[in-house]
């Protein structure tokens, strides 16, 4: 996993609440391999391009000041719906490194953490302030620092965000979670032995 330490970059506002992962990447692209050369093009495909494949000028990421954005600042429940991790892969392929939101879809949130994309949760009023500033100053930057757990807005105001120490450490180091868990083999095997005695019917999974 790519580590995340700090990003100081252009941020783009996404104002509608409940942006679902079908909108982030439509289902017909899910069978494409992650290393497909045009994977970034699938991001927000049906709201970003018209039926002929031309860019829709009203979509935020098609507007000149936001084309280099590495941060999205969204409304509540961004990434709700389907568990498709390709939503995060498409954001990553396009160049997004962090999402700042009042709340995120639970599975999307988890998928961000698995891919070195920083999910930042801030109170709704703070996020609304950031989005307003991004509209007022298109192309303005936001500075994110995971080590200090701080967001510096376009106007220089600072916000502290919470993230649990386990996820923070994983993101900072980019550690592979499977490798970490394999280190718990003794505990897993002990659990399986105990469960096998206490709940033997669970392993009887053969018709």
């Amino acid at each position: 996993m790519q580590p995340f330490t700090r990003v100081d970059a252009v941020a783009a506002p996404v104002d509608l609440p409940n942006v679902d992962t079908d909108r982030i990447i439509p289902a017909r692209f899910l069978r494409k391999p992650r290393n497909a050369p045009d994977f970034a093009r699938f991001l927000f495909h049906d709201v970003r391009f018209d039926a002929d494949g031309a860019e829709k000028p009203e979509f935020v990421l098609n507007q000149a000041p936001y084309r280099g954005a590495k941060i999205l600042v969204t409304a509540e429940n961004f990434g709700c719906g389907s568990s498709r991790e390709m939503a995060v892969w498409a954001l990553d392929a396009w160049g997004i490194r962090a999402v700042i939101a009042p709340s995120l879809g639970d599975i999307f949130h988890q998928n961000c953490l698995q891919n070195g994309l920083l999910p930042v949760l801030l109170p709704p009023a703070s996020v609304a302030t950031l989005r307003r500033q991004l509209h007022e100053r298109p192309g303005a930057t936001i500075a994110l620092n995971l080590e200090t757990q701080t967001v510096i807005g376009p106007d220089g105001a600072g916000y502290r965000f919470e993230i649990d120490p386990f996820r923070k450490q994983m993101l900072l180091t980019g550690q592979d979670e499977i490798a970490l868990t394999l280190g718990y083999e003794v505990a897993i095997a002990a659990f399986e032995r105990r469960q096998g005695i206490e709940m033997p019917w669970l392993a009887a999974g053969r018709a």
Partner: protein
Amino acid sequence: MFEKVWARHVVAEGPGGHVLLYIDRHLLHEGSTSAFGRLAKAGRRVRRTDLTFATADHYILTSGAVATDPEIRGMVETLSRHTAVQGIVYFGVDDPRRGIVHVIGPEQGLTLPGITLVCGDSHTATHGAFGALAFGIGSTEVEHVMTTQTLWQRKPQVMRVTVEGRLALGVTAKDVILAIIARIGAGGGVGHVIEYAGSTIRAMTMDERMTVCNMSIEAGARAGMVAPDETTFAYLEGRPFAPRGDGWARALAAWKTTPSDPGARFDREVRLAASEIAPTVTWGTSPQDALPITGRVPDPAEAAEGARRDSMVRALAYMGLTPGAPLTDVKVDRVFIGSCTNSRLEDLRAAARVAKGRHAVVPAWVVPGSGLVKRAAEAEGLDRIFVAAGFEWREAGCSMCVGMNGETAGVAERVASTSNRNFEGRQGRGARTHLMSPAMAAAAAVTGRLTDVRTLAG
């Protein structure tokens, strides 16, 4: 109940309130192929092939044909190859037990009370109807479970949703969950597991409880649970993978200790009265945009200024609806009865009761949830009722719910659908989805418009 299931599956405590949680059942579908690919590349094996089960549902054509698109066909073939290599039970294309992963888990007795169950699909919440802790995960976590049979998880909060009273005639489990989502909102359950309780839920069959739990994710909750009871046990007894003999007696004794203790505390409580719930349809592009069928298309001008109003305007434009119009004036172009929400035998019976002796005036598909549901329905003659009424009787699969197998609606086509998501583009680019119960969808098929099923005579 959630607390008990959680506590029984903690393998190790990690930092920051994270625990390593053991997973008792891992269900796979074609979407698991990229995880299988990474597993193979790392030279690893599936740790517990006896706790891992696979089926093909997302990319199957329910016409019964083999996909001509090589990518779609390849998704099924790749799953078949990986499961064979790893030695995993696979309910494949020609297996009558094949079907939607959330239909066949319970049907086969793989889903049991008190277990942890995951699948790379957000509607895994369905299995919570049995008192299991069941939730959807992404592709990287699928690989993690394949390799270690565990997941690092932080404990969610628990919300209890209590529904009391008797449902009126024509009101179903689908209407209950749509009403719940409308109440708490599409993001209302974020960070929570929902425990469904109350006399309305207790009176429900397992098929109905699965419909309710299925759409927990549409309220933002990763998991929904119903306490196991005699209804649960009666459903499970004798299922192919359910415990037998001595194992059944021991399991039953353990399952009876799963429900929440009286006086258990919840982080949040929500209450609804069954008498407030009417047959419900959605009008917008979020499952929270739900109203009684007797209502009218809402007017954004009456909403407070801001994001909510903007979303309504956008949703109505996408849906092609006029504010103030009676919902029963909305004409539909086609009907889809199926999906992991509403494709079980009782769902098909409810739709057939409405279809019987009538005739569909728009194309209407009936897609059973599994090969076994299909067989059971045919044994009762439901297929003949549907066919006589001009409905199309199809093979099992996700079909038009998921929009990834080529079975989609066209631009601006309006679909009365028993599925779970009315998102923009969910059923095809530009397609317009109205969510409702199987009986309501069948009613829409025979009238060609959104219809209050209670107004169809006898």
